[in-house]
């Protein structure tokens, strides 16, 4: 009888155990497919490698990585995330992500992820600017400071030994670096400027200089009021537009017909220009022979630079949020962290966002010296991030179109009234956008 009781108890215990373990075992073995979208096509090798490494540890989990041009993915997120048809994991810049955070399409970080983010592994700005209503969203995946790239060969030819430290030096060096043909046409820009193209890019590049001049796109009227106004209808805004107009028409150090942006720098049609560290990967791939170095942004009235980064978010669309978060944390703090960071440095060009990266890559600045000023903030420099209002993109895009028009207007040269008018009208439009979204506080 006693034996029988033992057997019976054993059977019941085994059945209970089976009931508990079976679902876990089934889940562990069940194939899980996650999707990840990124708006930075150059990041594909990184995400592919992360997916491969993760799959080696979790053979039942496959991650499908899709990358799209930035403008395209913004639209894809806009139509897919609110309808729960988006990816499990979305990579995005914070100012695009903000609207999706506000409508609940991107889910808050689980407590353990937030604890990890706040553990000091990341720069505090990453965490504070990824927070909304005291909740942290997303995990940083790449970063860079905005810095000045300059062609060292051209500097040498022009007899220049060091990069410019301020706007005056930037213009005077720009003049020395510019090349002209017999008719006086610019054949090489001393300073590459972004003057054209649809979208927000033109204004975003102008904004770096605006920040140096002491202005901004928006300013909060009173702290934590949640109400804003345009912050460039002032001396800073006028100075920044004047900088561009003078560069184009007075000093003639940039030619719009030459290639712009990265392409212009890679084609050696520009001696200097401002961008982020992805240029390292781009130059390695497209213009390996070009000799260039990187320096902090030339200072205006303020000495500052942009801290640019993107986060990976788990979306509300995800049917497997647990696995999605696990993969996000695998990228941020997994056993293959060093290998993944190596891919960023060697192939992509964007930089790993963790503070302790030097421990794992002590020789990176000697191997690729360009990374130094994309990563290290000079002591005198103040850091700032992109504005994170949901209307930022619209404000930037509409400002960009006004700037494009202004850049083509030669009559703005030595015309402070014309410049003030152009800036005032642009700022009025920005204020209108704020008003429309009930974010405006008045002048």
């Amino acid at each position: 009888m006693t034996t029988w009781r033992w057997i019976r108890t054993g059977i019941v215990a085994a059945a209970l155990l089976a009931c508990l373990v079976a679902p876990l075992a089934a889940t562990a073995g069940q194939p899980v497919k996650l999707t990840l979208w990124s708006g930075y096509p150059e990041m594909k090798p990184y995400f592919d490698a992360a997916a491969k490494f993760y799959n080696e540890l979790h053979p039942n989990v496959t991650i499908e990585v899709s990358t799209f041009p930035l403008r395209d993915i913004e639209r894809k997120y806009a139509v897919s995330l609110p309808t729960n048809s988006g990816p499990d994991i979305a990579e995005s810049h914070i100012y695009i992500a903000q609207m999706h955070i506000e409508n609940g399409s991107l889910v808050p970080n689980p407590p353990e992820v937030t604890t990890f983010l706040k553990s000091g592994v990341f720069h505090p700005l990453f965490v504070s600017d990824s927070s909304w209503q005291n909740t942290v969203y997303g995990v940083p995946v790449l970063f860079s400071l905005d810095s000045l790239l300059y062609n060292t060969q051209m500097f040498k030819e022009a007899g220049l030994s060091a990069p410019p430290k301020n706007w005056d030096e930037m213009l005077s060096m720009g003049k020395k670096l510019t090349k002209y043909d017999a008719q006086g046409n610019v054949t090489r820009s001393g300073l590459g400027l972004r003057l054209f193209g649809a979208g927000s890019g033109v204004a975003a590049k102008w904004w770096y200089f605006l920040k140096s001049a002491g202005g901004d796109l928006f300013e909060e009227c009173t702290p934590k009021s949640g109400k804003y106004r345009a912050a460039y209808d002032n001396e800073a805004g006028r100075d920044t537009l004047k900088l561009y107009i003078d560069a184009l028409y007075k000093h003639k150090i940039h030619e719009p017909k030459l290639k712009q942006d990265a392409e212009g720098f890679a084609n050696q049609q520009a001696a200097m220009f401002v961008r982020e560290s992805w240029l390292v990967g781009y130059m390695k791939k497209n213009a390996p022979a070009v000799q260039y170095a990187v320096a902090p942004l030339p200072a205006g009235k303020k000495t500052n630079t942009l801290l640019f980064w993107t986060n990976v978010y788990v979306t509300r669309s995800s049917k497997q949020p647990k696995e999605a978060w696990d993969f996000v944390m695998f990228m941020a703090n997994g056993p293959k962290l060093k290998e993944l960071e190596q891919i960023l440095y060697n192939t992509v060009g964007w930089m790993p966002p963790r503070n302790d990266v030097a421990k794992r890559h002590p020789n990176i600045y000697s191997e690729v010296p360009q990374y130094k000023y994309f990563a290290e903030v000079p002591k005198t420099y103040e850091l700032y991030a992109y504005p994170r209002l949901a209307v930022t993109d619209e404000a930037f895009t509409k400002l960009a179109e006004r700037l494009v028009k202004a850049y083509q207007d030669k009559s703005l040269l030595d015309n402070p009234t014309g410049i003030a008018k152009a800036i005032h009208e642009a700022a009025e439009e920005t204020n209108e956008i704020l008003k429309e979204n009930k974010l405006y506080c008045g002048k």
Partner: protein
Amino acid sequence: MPPVSPGNPAHPCWWARVRSQWQWYGPQWKYCLAVLGPVCLAYLIIRIIPIVDTAWMSLHNWSLVKPVRPFIGLDNYVKLAGDPLFRMALYNTTLFAVVTVPVTLVLAFTVAVLLDRPMRGRLENVYKFLFFLPVVPTMVPVSVVWKWIYDPSYGILNYALGFLGVPPQGWLIDSRLAIWAIILMTVWKSVGYYMVLFLVGLKDIPVDYYEAAGIDGATAWQRLTQITIPLMRPMLLFNVVIATIFACNVFAQVYVMTEGPQGSPANPVRVIVMDMYENGFRYLKMGYASAEAMVLLLIVFALTVFEFRFLRPKV
């Protein structure tokens, strides 16, 4: 003849009359329903319902990402009337249509007339092929290629013009030139399409008419104006209507040519569909973009009615 006329007192009820006609014409009705029903249903689903839906959205403050979409009546339309970007888009679309439609059709008609005759060694087929070739690839790759052609530094157009002593032009970056550059590319791409349609129309004109006119001593110009053009009116009407609709809906080439740092500034080439796309998918204002879509629909509808009224063949 149906057995019952509408006024037949034997069947005063309309339903009875319908039933009676159904019985009489039954097989024909059923055939019509079977053939037209699916088409009408498909048309209803993919055309009518989305249009009604768009009209409904245009009356709301409809954000793509916000769950609350309040009804705002005609506010979007009122705002459109005062929107300088919409006015700019309307102007550019009008300019685009006013130039591309006549230029394309005149060129296509001229080419069709010139090629509608046998040439030595069947050379006319080679020409037809060459003119039709640009129609084959879709607009996006063609626009990418033309973006390169227009490149101020490396573009073949500036290179070729250089031989004529013309200095390099910023075809896409110069605000005054950008829209014309896009018009030129569109005309180049479309001529072959309308040429083929005109050729089909020309083939339908009996040769006897030309022979008779020749015997009467009509000149080539007289044959063109007195025989060809009048008999081509239905085809002309079709082509004008189609070309106008295409011109009003221009988008892909503008989108591609404004994209990226080497692209054209957007405002000088802003067209209505581009503005609609920006408002809908960039600023996520679907209600506002829907109002623009409704305005565009009305414009295209009005133009089509106008064209039908003035160009339809006089019987």
